[in-house]
């Protein structure tokens, strides 16, 4: 059995190959013009490590799973086609208005405060290519104004004459009654039948792409889906062809941001957006089961950003509460991976407005010019520069010695830019930079766990990314976390994650169903109102299961519900204890699960069932479990890790308020059972783990490094 997992990132394409249970990690530079080239290079490197040619490896590969950034790239490059939008007459500016401050959807709190300079994102479909059609459906789904078909035709040709290559249709209340949207699609198809451009006029309707309440997010979601479809399809067709011509004959499996995967043909454009980090999250979930942890924060600290995601017992709390794609708030279910501007390249600077207060990031020196120590023209000190001054990073062994760093330049920059203005020495300034950078990340861990109703003390941190192990104790312990784990395959963590995925499909539909009546708290009696929605989703799901070549018996069906108290806008997603409602006890069971979850997240004082309880959306999950990668286990070797020590150097420790001679371990030589107390430094080829004096490191049976606060 051979599996290949590819994760395309901004700089590198990671490859995780498992041949009969043995994992191999490979990397190649991402080729943005044609992503498949970078993928094939990574596969080639992996193949060479195994002793095969690329073609041999691909011919023997059983599953090829792919996390791609195509959608991200297409959005940045504005690579989509010219589209026209048909909406309900009188609502042509809905996207441009953006419910007011749409600029705030992608900004940090600090950026939001700078109101004087805000700017809204430019709509993907300009106002000039947006038309309103004469029709209206009301909040009960009743037709208040019949569709004016002549008007549709006239507006259609108005758009066509302006050069649109596709039409997006998003009408008010279409998720409740899609008749008008469907009819518009029929009209457009009829208009183009037999014409020279014929079927070349795609029509995308919101009631199919996003059958959810709220016209703004539904419309935006549908526009993005339509806009990104063609560039994503084109790129993936190229990928399929490249793989096929090199020997891979099976289905290309796409990693989804929902936390599962599906064949290329069952993947929507938006499913693939930001799938790589989500794969890492799914890998964490699998690892947490293997290692026996209930709650995990996955952290990934790279050069420019610090990403984190939550794995916890209540899976519904891991979803993105306000999903954003590019500049746009959308309504799709995706697992949340929070990103802040904090990485090795984050720049330390003094804020003159606050008496020269030291701040770190969000600006980054990135890889070019990079930290001052890279000596590529960077002049502003970064977190990596501070790590060098503090002795954590060896200027002679950066990236396994492949890159020599200039400590002298680093010292000079920190002295001039930070230390002297603050009246500190260079070491104090570097320690301050590290402390502030770590605190920013610690606060993010704290906030993201707390917002979901958890206590960070109950979590274990998984650390990935090049700069992650250097700072993992620094950002985990202040957040209240007591245990941190790093992994031998950290460099390709997200690619590893997709090797642990199941096939998952999600089916969603908004429907407002009153579970408890306001004031009287009477339970829902019309069970069909609920069951019909679920059954319709289930039937659709099973068709897809069969279409993908599986038996309905292979599928595990589960239901999630978006619920709220009467009058609220914000919903809380729960795992429904019942798939269907058959009696009052079932209704009560759903309510109790909602009440329990609500109370956990917001506190008991916030409960108000007297205001009524409503279901607003049903989300049906179909899971087809897949065989997962099993991590190789190693027998206990010894506790003493002395043989892994490669030397020592002076490193700064906050606990000692100064430098101490610190042993340096070679990660490759660590064995199962090795254990030692900090301070210590563990060097690997692509990262350096820093173990403070107050922590103890243990190597577990998977050769993971487990650091616990003592």
């Amino acid at each position: 059995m051979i599996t290949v997992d590819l994760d395309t990132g901004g700089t590198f394409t990671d490859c995780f190959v498992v041949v009969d249970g043995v994992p191999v990690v490979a990397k190649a530079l991402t080729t943005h013009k044609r992503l498949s080239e970078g993928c094939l290079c990574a596969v080639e490197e992996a193949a060479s490590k195994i002793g095969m040619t690329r073609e041999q490896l691909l011919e023997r590969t059983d599953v090829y799973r792919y996390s791609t950034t195509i959608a991200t790239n297409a959005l940045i490059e504005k690579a989509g086609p010219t589209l026209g939008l048909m909406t309900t007459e009188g609502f042509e500016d809905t996207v441009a208005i953006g419910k007011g401050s749409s600029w705030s959807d992608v900004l940090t709190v600090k950026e939001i405060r700078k109101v004087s300079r805000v700017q809204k994102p430019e709509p993907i479909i300009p106002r000039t290519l947006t038309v309103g059609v004469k029709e209206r459906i009301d909040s009960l789904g009743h037709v208040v104004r019949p569709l004016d078909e002549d008007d549709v035709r006239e507006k259609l040709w108005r758009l066509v004459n302006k050069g649109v290559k596709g039409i997006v249709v998003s009408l008010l209340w279409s998720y409740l009654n899609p008749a008008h949207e469907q009819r518009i699609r029929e009209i457009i198809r009829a208009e183009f039948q037999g014409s020279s451009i014929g079927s070349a006029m795609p029509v995308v309707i919101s009631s199919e792409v996003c059958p959810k309440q709220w016209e703004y997010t539904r419309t935006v979601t549908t526009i993005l889906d339509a806009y990104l479809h063609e560039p994503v399809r084109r790129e993936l067709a190229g990928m399929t062809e490249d793989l096929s011509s090199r020997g891979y004959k099976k289905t290309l499996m796409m990693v989804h941001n929902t936390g599962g995967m599906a064949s290329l043909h069952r993947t929507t454009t938006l499913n693939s957006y930001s799938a790589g980090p989500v794969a890492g999250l799914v890998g964490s979930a699998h690892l947490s089961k293997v290692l026996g942890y209930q709650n995990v924060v996955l952290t990934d600290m790279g050069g420019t950003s610090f990403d984190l995601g939550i794995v916890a017992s209540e899976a519904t709390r891991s979803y993105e509460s306000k999903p954003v794609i590019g500049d746009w708030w959308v309504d799709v279910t995706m697992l949340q991976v929070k990103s802040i501007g904090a990485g090795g390249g984050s720049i330390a600077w003094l804020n003159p407005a606050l008496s020269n207060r030291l701040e770190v990031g969000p600006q980054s020196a990135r890889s070019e010019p990079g930290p001052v120590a890279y000596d590529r023209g960077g002049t502003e000190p970064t977190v990596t520069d501070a790590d060098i001054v503090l002795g954590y990073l060896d200027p002679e062994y950066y990236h396994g010695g492949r890159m020599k760093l200039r400590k002298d330049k680093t010292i000079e920059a920190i002295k001039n830019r930070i230390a002297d203005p603050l009246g500190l020495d260079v070491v104090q300034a570097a320690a301050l930079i590290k402390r502030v950078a770590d605190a920013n990340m610690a606060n993010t861990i704290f906030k993201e766990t707390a917002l979901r109703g958890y206590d960070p003390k109950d979590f274990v941190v998984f650390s990935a990314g090049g700069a992650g192990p250097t700072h993992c104790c620094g950002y985990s312990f202040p957040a209240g976390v007591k245990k941190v784990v790093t992994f031998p395959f950290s460099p390709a963590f997200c690619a590893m994650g997709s090797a642990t995925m199941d096939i998952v499909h999600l089916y969603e539909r908004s429907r407002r169903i009153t579970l408890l009546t306001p004031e009287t708290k009477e339970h829902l009696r019309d069970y069909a109102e609920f069951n019909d929605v679920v059954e319709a989703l289930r039937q659709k799901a099973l068709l897809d299961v069969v279409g993908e070549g599986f038996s309905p018996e292979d599928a595990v069906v589960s239901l999630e519900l978006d619920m709220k108290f009467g009058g609220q806008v914000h919903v809380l997603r729960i795992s429904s204890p019942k798939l269907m409602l058959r009696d009052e006890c079932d209704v009560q069971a759903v309510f109790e699960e909602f009440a329990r979850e609500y109370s956990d997240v917001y506190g008991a004082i916030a409960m108000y069932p007297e205001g009524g309880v409503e279901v607003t959306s049903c989300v049906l999950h179909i899971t087809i479990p897949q065989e997962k990668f099993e991590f190789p286990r190693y027998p206990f070797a010894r506790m003493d890790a002395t043989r892994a020590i490669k030397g020592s150097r002076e490193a700064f420790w906050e606990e000692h308020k100064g430098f101490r001679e610190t042993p340096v371990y070679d990660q490759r030589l660590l064995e199962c059972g090795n254990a030692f107390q900090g301070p210590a430094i563990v060097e690997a080829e692509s990262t350096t783990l820093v173990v403070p004096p107050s922590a103890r490191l243990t190597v577990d049976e998977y050769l993971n490094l487990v650091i616990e606060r003592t």
Partner: protein
Amino acid sequence: MRPSYEQLLDWIKPGPATDDETACMELLEPGDLEVYGSKIDEIIAEAKEIFMRIGVSAMLRTGDLVVAICTASGDMVAASTGTYAQAVISQLPVKFTVQNWLDNPTVGAKPGDIFYFNEPLYGSMHGPDQTAFMPVFNDGELVAWVLACVHQSETGATEPGGMVLRAANRFYEGVKITPIKFGENYQLRDDLVEMLFNYMARSPRVQMNDIRARAAACQRLELRVSELAKEKGNPFIKGLFRSVITESEKAVRARTRSWNDGTYRALAFQDHVGSEEGLLRCFVEMRKKGDRIEFDFTGTSPEHDAGADLAMPHHVVATGAQFLFSHVFHDLPVSSGAFAPLDWVLPAGTMFSAGPMAPVSRAPSLLALVVAALYELFAKMAFDSEHRELILGGSGGGSSMNIVGLNQEGIAVSDILSYPFNTEGQGARTDMDGTDSNSFVYAPASRGYDAEDSESQLPLLTLFQNHRRDSCGFGKFRGGSGVVSAYVVHGTPEISFSSGGRESRMRMCQGIFGGYPSGVKIGIEVENSRLFEQMRDGEADLPSDIHQLVTERTIDGTYKFSHNRRPLHRVREGDVVIHLNGGGSGYGDVLERDPEALAEDMRRGIVSPEVAQDVFCIVFDGATFEVDLEKTAEKRDEERKDRLRRGRSYDEFEAEWLEKRPTAQALKHYGSWPDAEKVRDIVRR
């Protein structure tokens, strides 16, 4: 016991650091302020998010709210992004409680207590702004207070919405709660909750839910601050809090020093008083010297007896905070320290210093005048500074529309329509246009909610909701466009509407440096309408924008045009109510606007061809909007020459201007003409 206005103003500034606090500040090490200052920000952000997710009322769920942390003596340390006005004065009831209840054996404060309040005389902006606050203890010592405040569109007042147009005195304005203990042991007291339920029976579901939302937000803050105190110890917390306040003051002083010393003046007018048309004047003289600024409101119209367009001095300062933290202090900590170097002169007898019997429920609406004046004052002062990028023309000053009655499910509702409220245009910047349909001036990152949301909660059908053509202020850079919404009563025989709007004759905000103010707003309704029948019958020419509605009048019915302020009135099913919100003011000369940008404005329906031609003086193809640059240059040259021909000396202008005088109705509540001095005593019973 009730605090005087002077006392309330004094409480807005931080109290002096105690010896204990000063000693505790010494405990902080380098980096502590950075690390734990940002921790406080995260605690605040978490509580705000929870508050918004739980709440029901329109203002709450759109983010027009504040959560804050205060020291043990009540000085504000940090507050959430958004409604800074509430943040600044929500510390006042805390200070009252500290001074009057803390050591009072009949009240006191202990862990888990929840206090509640909304009384303007004790610091609230107006009755609808209701605040929950809690003490935070660690090891038996009071270390902090936390609070959560949001506008509630029901107070049991004589008019729904709680902002009573026709109030003769404070007793028209519904329940007013002085700071009271509302809960104990982390639970609300059912007897007091029932009392509020009884008072606010027009919309009990909203009230009951939002009280819980406030309490839940407070509890989360209380938990986090006490955790921090446990981790770091009480002396650290005290030192940290005082350091934040001190740093904030230092930062404001430094920023102020960077601006040119001088005396700057601004005027702003409101064109409605109570339920009548009339003029009110806000006059501000801003004296800036060194690191201090004094705002003197002498010359503002006197207190009147025509309704609740009145305010108290602390309201004015709170409104100032809204402007300052949204713009020129956007990067400084939101703490009471910021107010130490700022002084406020608010003479007794003006409408901004109304007597204690006065109704003030419309204070925030009236005080949009202060915001308008501050836009102008800071544009003048900061233009010649490194902060020029932060100045801009005035935004829409907010214009609420309330709806009350039974919704389509028979549930009692009373709420503000959120979409128009939160989509007003932003003023132009000195280097770019204002943002269209930007937000609400009192909550800069607030959101309206979708038509599908309002229509599911309220008995309405939205006929159209788009940018309003020509609503922006014109200039070299234009203000952001406002929005027009048309609501049709649907699913209920009738419902009541009221609008607290104004600016039907003139806008409060003027343009800056030659820019125009934005368009005025009027009230439009269609009564006895046959709209639903016409829609059912598939009539093709029904209106999809306000210009079409007014000029073509294809909806069968009676068209009513009024000023924008519309007291509570019944509207029947099928009738149409129009709401126009405000655009932003313009910057600079219209003749300097890029003609290509105007062509785009026309294509997007933001500016009409008539305005482009007559005001901006460009020449273009009427079908494609393609601009003829050569002819435009010629036309603009001609206009410049014509301006010179139309021009006159200042003496000539002033002589003519002084001959003019507003009508008697306009001056009824204005005060003496032209200086707005008091002309009569106001007696309230």
